[in-house]
């Protein structure tokens, strides 16, 4: 019984496709989770698999840990993640205040939808990771865009204030910024926190790139500010620099009052995150930050060398793993060395983002760009 390809396609199917194609945000290009070889468009550089990750996975297989895990994740992993986040000043209840997700996009989905479906307007910066706009195109949530400063691509307080003014809003923030790697300054975060509290709002805080912030840079998580713990859900990945970025493990942390709906949504979309991956992540988290400073410094060196070729075009950022460049002229993206991620998907046409990888390919890419070879 083979399908007959001569039969006309269903009009209903065609109508369904057209309906979805009309949702621009849903059609946005997404970066791959990892940058591979000479393709520098992925969200994260990857290093060799950490021995602790490999060991954690193999031991789990030996024990037969291949069935469903609890919806919010393995209890042991949540405890370790909670401990690790404590080092950043975050107090997270490992029982009800954490959900282990299948990568950062799922964390973003849960965060945006658990608040959006509870009636919060979701305020997305005009320039933001495409995954945020894309997920906001699903379901029945109300998403609004908040203008950014065109030169820095960062939010300014006045526009944040206006966005929050309508009440019952969840403000989506990235620090470090997912396009440029720019870290928000503490004074600015404090001012936002004050506005959020005053308007009884909430914050979704993307801290995914935090492990790549250069040493000595002051980094504040908004959830650590007075009164903000109960108003913030934080997302991040597990565990940068350990080689598991392509295995897709991340977390969503927040007050139990907010995460209940997140657990329900997680059950609806996936039941649980891949169990052996959670054991792998546990190995990584238990290994702690071993070697991360060296990896970070190595990437920072690569980033500096690359930026030196086009100093005026590189956007400011303190994060080792990404480098954003304002293109000096209109060029075809596919012709650019390193095949960077287009800023257009982030809401910033004319900008491209290169992943800074340990192989140093970005140096050659920027040299080539500077010499007009592309």
């Amino acid at each position, binding site marked *: 019984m083979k399908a007959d390809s001569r039969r006309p396609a269903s009009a209903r199917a065609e109508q*369904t496709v057209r309906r979805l194609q009309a949702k621009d945000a849903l059609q946005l290009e997404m970066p791959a989770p990892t940058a*591979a070889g000479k393709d520098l468009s992925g969200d994260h550089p990857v290093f060799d698999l950490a021995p602790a990750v490999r060991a954690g996975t*193999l031991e789990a297989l030996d024990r037969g*840990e*291949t069935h469903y895990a609890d919806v919010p994740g393995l209890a042991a992993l949540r405890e370790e993640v909670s401990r690790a986040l404590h080092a950043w000043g975050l107090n997270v209840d490992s029982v009800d205040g954490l959900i282990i*997700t299948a990568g950062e996009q799922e964390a973003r989905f849960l965060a945006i939808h658990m608040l959006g479906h509870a009636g919060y307007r979701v305020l997305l910066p005009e320039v933001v990771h495409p995954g945020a706009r894309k*997920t906001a195109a699903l379901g029945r949530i109300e998403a609004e865009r908040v203008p950014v400063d065109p030169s820095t691509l960062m939010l300014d307080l006045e526009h944040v204030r206006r966005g929050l003014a309508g009440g019952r809003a969840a403000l989506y923030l990235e620090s470090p910024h997912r396009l440029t790697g720019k870290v928000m300054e503490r004074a600015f975060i404090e001012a936002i926190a004050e506005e959020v509290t005053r308007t009884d709002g909430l914050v979704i805080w993307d801290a995914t790139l935090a492990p790549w912030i250069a040493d000595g840079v002051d980094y504040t998580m908004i959830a650590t500010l007075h009164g903000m713990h109960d108003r913030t859900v934080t997302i991040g990945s597990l565990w940068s620099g350990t080689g598991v970025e392509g295995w897709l493990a991340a977390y969503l942390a927040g007050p139990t009052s907010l995460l209940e*709906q997140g657990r*329900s*949504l997680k059950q609806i979309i996936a039941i649980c995150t891949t169990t052996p991956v959670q054991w792998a992540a546990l190995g990584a988290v238990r290994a702690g930050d071993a070697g991360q400073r060296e990896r970070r410094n190595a990437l920072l060196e690569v980033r500096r060398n690359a930026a030196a070729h086009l100093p005026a075009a590189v956007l400011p950022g303190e994060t080792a793993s990404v480098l954003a460049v304002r293109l000096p002229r209109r060029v075809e993206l596919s012709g650019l060395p390193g095949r960077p991620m287009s800023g257009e998907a982030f809401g910033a046409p004319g900008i491209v983002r290169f992943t800074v990888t340990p192989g140093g390919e970005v140096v050659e890419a920027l040299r080539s760009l500077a010499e007009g070879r592309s």
Partner: protein
Amino acid sequence: MSRRSAKQPAKVQAPPTGTSLFYSLMSELKKYPDAINLGRGDPDFTTPAHILEAVRRWLEAPDADLRAPGRMRDEVLRAIATRLREVNGIDVDPSTEIVLTQGGQEALFLMIQTVLAPGDEIVVPEPNYSSYADAIAFAGAVQVAVRTRIDENFVLDPDRVRAAITPRTRALVMVSPNNPTAAVLSPDRVNALTAIAEEHDLLILADDIYDRFLYDDHVHTSPASLDGMKPRTLTLNALSKMYAMTGWRTGWVAGPAPLIEQVGRIKEAASGGLSLLAMRAGVAALTGPQDGLYEMQAAYGRRRRIVMDALDAMGLRYGVPQGGQFILVDIGPTGLSSLDLARRFLEQAHVLVSPGISYGEAWKGFIRMTFLQPEPTLAEAMRRIADVVTRLG
């Protein structure tokens, strides 16, 4: 803990759903050391050894690329396409007509979000797996339930489907073998239902997740394998039940390329990609020896008999499982609602069953039991349940 803000933000609370109702019972199960779980659909078998060995070898291979999906994605897509052709009779292009998902659960969610928008209607056989209602509610659409009946062994009736269709109906769900009823749609019944879908230009969402578990002479027919049906059909499946791989979260949606492209967009929006580790296990499961699957098929057949014999002895009516891993039981003679009886089984027999109320108000007179426990454990569970039923008089 940080200090609380003066103005406390509102609590974001999950509404009670069939799914959450069941999970609240399951959390109570942990209180009993001798508990037997006949509620959750998680096979007791371990993932076949050759699959674990393949993943192990891959992790230890010096030249394996453990970091980026590239080649592994192509391999698993090809393996799925082969499976769809050989088992289901569906020809697909692996590069454009399959989306990888986190198990059948995400596949179901993505299919629903693809075809439904707020206000749309979808015809779903009832009772049904409660995640259908959750996914439909997320889309803001309306589930139009078509009741199946125990005296028809819960097989979906085409006339009732036809009567449920309105101008707002966009799709029809076909689940065979069914969860929770274990009814199988015969080839004639699949033909009749797909004809209705064609007549009303409905999309078909085919849930084939139990297609390898069939009893007696029943056969599985994939709607997309029928002449002309592929352009309007999305088919989901997963390795969870087939290979006792529930924790790996490896599944897929297959269908015509234009629709699948949009399923993929929604997948990107929901969770991005699929874990490389899940892909590797998937390749091993689909391309390796199938002995583990055959052993499970035989075991489920024996277990089904144990459960049916025990229920016969208790004088309880049920739908004869034609496939799947479940049995849906009419508990009317006990005089209790499904939630009360499930609680009583839990507290007095330390056995968890799924209360029918989690499938909707109309099903409060039923319970669902799985046969996903070893034969001695299953026999013990049925003995304990029988004691409770006997005490009820």
